[in-house]
């Protein structure tokens, strides 16, 4: 029996286990939309802007580990996906983005709503396809999902002309993919793994630096085994948070520009860094020449192009984190690093990066902490970008992977609300808190309508300080407080919520916080709280841009204000 291109696409999506599509219709995808009712297993969620579809697919993917799917029409529909695709690319989120294209005879003629979306997305997709023959469609979908989820995951775009949706052919879904140019290295090189094990056994001050690759390869257990067997402290990148329980005695939190002072000190004084599934982003390393100056570096990553890209590496191991760690764990012996761990504990006591100072006013950190307490840590937290993101990383503790969802590489304001929506759709039984800023939430606030229409019970906490807070903080610290283009006279978010049809509350004082959170949690649907917080609160600790990780500025309202990493010589431990 012959099927249309649109039917073939739906059949193929079902074969790939797709349950949800975040999309927005338009002229050239009408044949596909007209076909969707035949496939009731595919839930379509109508977003209000295609950027929301891409972020929602990304949030869905990060919460579930599955490939997220978004769908848009040609032209502006496709270009509106671009930010979300780039966001997924930089954070290695598996995603398949489907766009409609003008019918084949019109391609290249600047037809209505025509844009060269495959050309546009070359640098921000793992791969992309323009399907010019309906007979290629099933194979292309198969390959796209395979590419999106294997190796270093990432977004793949499929551009389908309108007449290809209509054309008919036999449907045969390929069993296997044949991609001669795509063979990710999964197993690490045994000699390199041996070298790494030897380096670990010789190390006196080792630090494991764990990233999102651990989560993506489902290697959290293997990581825990490695850390515990050799009693090595673990620090993470922002996106690595949750790959190792933050309540674990060997956990020393996040490194980087707003990382824990003690995590940064640990890296700065380590004699061995075991970096796993991370890519030495500048926000994590600080000044590269001052990064881990005393350490040899083992770098385990599935992407060979990340080895030596930003930081010199002594022992590269290309491979999947889970496979490499499994082999490494066979070779690593039991060891103790009592002195070293004690030293880190001392730094943690002397530089308590996550205590909240006393204040009569409503501090943003206090709000995040209370969300942690009220949820008992059992929630998926989806953040915006900037101060709210850093406070969410610092003042909430994540014991499981996939519980902190945040735009790391691209730093996309506006990610929070649609991504939270996607996370909640993927994990309907979990509590999802969207912790947003008053700036970022307005970039995709239209998705409140989607949330209400589709009954997606996201809890939204707006950390409202009346500023583009992180930019203001930089103006405060590095531009002599010239607050150019950062003050916001925001809308009345409670009225906004009401207009969209969800309940909202405004909270201005400390004592209102917990009752408001409890009310939001008790409510069956989506709920918005506008927390009007201290306007000029800064995020600390902070490593100034261009400085090394050891040069941490701590909150001047807590003492001591500035501290350089205590300089350990090799002889002291």
């Amino acid at each position, binding site marked *: 029996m012959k099927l249309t291109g649109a039917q073939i696409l739906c059949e193929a999506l079902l074969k790939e286990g797709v349950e949800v599509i975040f999309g927005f219709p338009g002229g050239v995808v009408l044949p596909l939309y007209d076909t969707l009712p035949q496939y009731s297993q595919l839930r379509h969620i109508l977003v209000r802007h295609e950027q929301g579809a891409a972020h929602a697919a990304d949030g869905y993917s990060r919460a579930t580990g599955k490939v997220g799917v978004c769908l848009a029409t040609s032209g502006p529909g496709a270009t509106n996906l671009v930010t979300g695709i780039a966001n997924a690319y930089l954070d290695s989120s598996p995603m398949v983005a489907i766009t409609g294209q003008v019918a084949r005879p019109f391609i290249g003629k600047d037809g209505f709503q025509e844009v060269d979306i495959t050309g546009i997305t070359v*640098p921000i997709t793992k*791969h992309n396809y323009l399907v010019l023959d309906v007979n290629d469609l099933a194979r292309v979908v198969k390959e796209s999902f395979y590419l999106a989820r294997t190796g270093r995951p990432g977004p793949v775009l499929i551009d389908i002309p309108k007449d290809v949706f209509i054309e008919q052919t036999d449907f045969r879904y390929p069993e296997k993919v044949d991609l*001669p*140019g795509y063979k990710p290295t999964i197993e690490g090189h045994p000699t390199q793994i041996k070298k790494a094990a030897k380096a670990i056994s010789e190390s006196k001050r080792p630090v494991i630096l764990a990233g999102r690759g651990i989560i993506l390869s489902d290697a959290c257990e293997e990581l825990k085994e490695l850390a515990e067997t050799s009693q090595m402290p673990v620090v993470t990148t922002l996106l690595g948070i949750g790959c190792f329980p933050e309540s674990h005695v060997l956990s020393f939190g996040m490194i980087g520009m707003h990382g824990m002072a003690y995590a940064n000190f640990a890296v700065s004084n380590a004699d061995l860094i075991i970096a796993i599934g991370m890519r030495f982003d500048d926000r994590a390393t600080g000044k590269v020449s001052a990064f881990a100056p005393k350490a040899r570096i083992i770098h385990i990553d599935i992407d060979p192009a990340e*080895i030596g890209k930003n930081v010199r590496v002594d022992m590269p191991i290309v491979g999947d984190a889970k496979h490499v760690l499994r082999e490494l764990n066979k070779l690593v012996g039991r060891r103790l690093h009592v002195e070293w761990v004690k030293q880190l504990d001392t730094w943690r006591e002397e530089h308590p990066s996550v205590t909240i100072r006393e204040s009569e006013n409503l501090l943003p950190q206090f709000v995040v902490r209370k969300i942690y307490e009220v949820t008992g840590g059992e929630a998926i937290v989806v953040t915006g970008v900037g101060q709210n993101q850093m406070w969410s990383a610092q003042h909430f503790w994540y014991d499981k992977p996939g519980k902190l969802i945040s735009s790391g590489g691209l730093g996309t304001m506006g990610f929070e609300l649609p991504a939270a929506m996607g996370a909640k759709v993927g994990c309907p039984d979990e509590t999802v808190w969207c912790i947003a800023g008053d700036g970022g939430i307005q970039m995709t606030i239209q998705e409140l309508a989607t949330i209400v229409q589709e009954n997606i019970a996201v809890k939204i906490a707006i950390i409202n300080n009346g500023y583009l807070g992180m930019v203001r903080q930089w103006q405060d610290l590095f531009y002599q407080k010239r607050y150019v283009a950062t003050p916001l006279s925001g809308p009345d978010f409670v009225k906004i919520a009401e207009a969209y049809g969800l309940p909202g509350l405004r909270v201005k004082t400390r004592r209102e916080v917990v009752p408001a959170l409890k009310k939001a949690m008790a409510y069956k649907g989506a709920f918005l709280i506008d927390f009007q917080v201290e306007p000029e609160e800064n995020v600390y600790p902070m490593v100034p841009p261009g400085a090394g990780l050891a040069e941490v500025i701590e909150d001047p309202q807590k003492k001591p204000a500035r501290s350089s990493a205590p300089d350990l010589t090799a002889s002291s431990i």
Partner: protein
Amino acid sequence: MDFQKHTLVVLVADKPGILNRVASLFRRRGFNIDSIAVGHAEQPNLSRMTIVVGGAEGTVEQVRKQLAKLVDVVRISDITNEPVVTRELALIKVKATAASRNEIIQIVDIFRANIVDVAADSLTVEVTGDGEKLDSLINLLRGFGIKELSRTGCIALTRGTTSSATAEE
């Protein structure tokens, strides 16, 4: 910095847009292409690109790794330090007067190049060889006045039975 020119032989799937993908990658990562030549390879559906790229060792290593990440790139070899045959072709339209024509013809003969077109005030010279040979001929002809110049970019194969970047490993 150990700056060196590297010759990469890249076997790619013969699909629309592959040149764009490669070019986009070079532009985006700030790598400079000295020359690029593309044509069908020995197998159907595959093309061979010869890319000459200048840069420090680390830069070229990044180029190679980033290229390898492209799904349509099947294999890459850096043949810089291998025994290879490299050839490039150039067409040079050089000003020629009655007085200078003979001298040009002599130079062309020395280089075993050919004159492929003659006009009242110009000669068009075709020359093949490695890049250095072309450079020196072009330099010599510059004195007469070069009106137009077109070079193909270098193509290369390894010598003997060893093969660079074939589909089989």
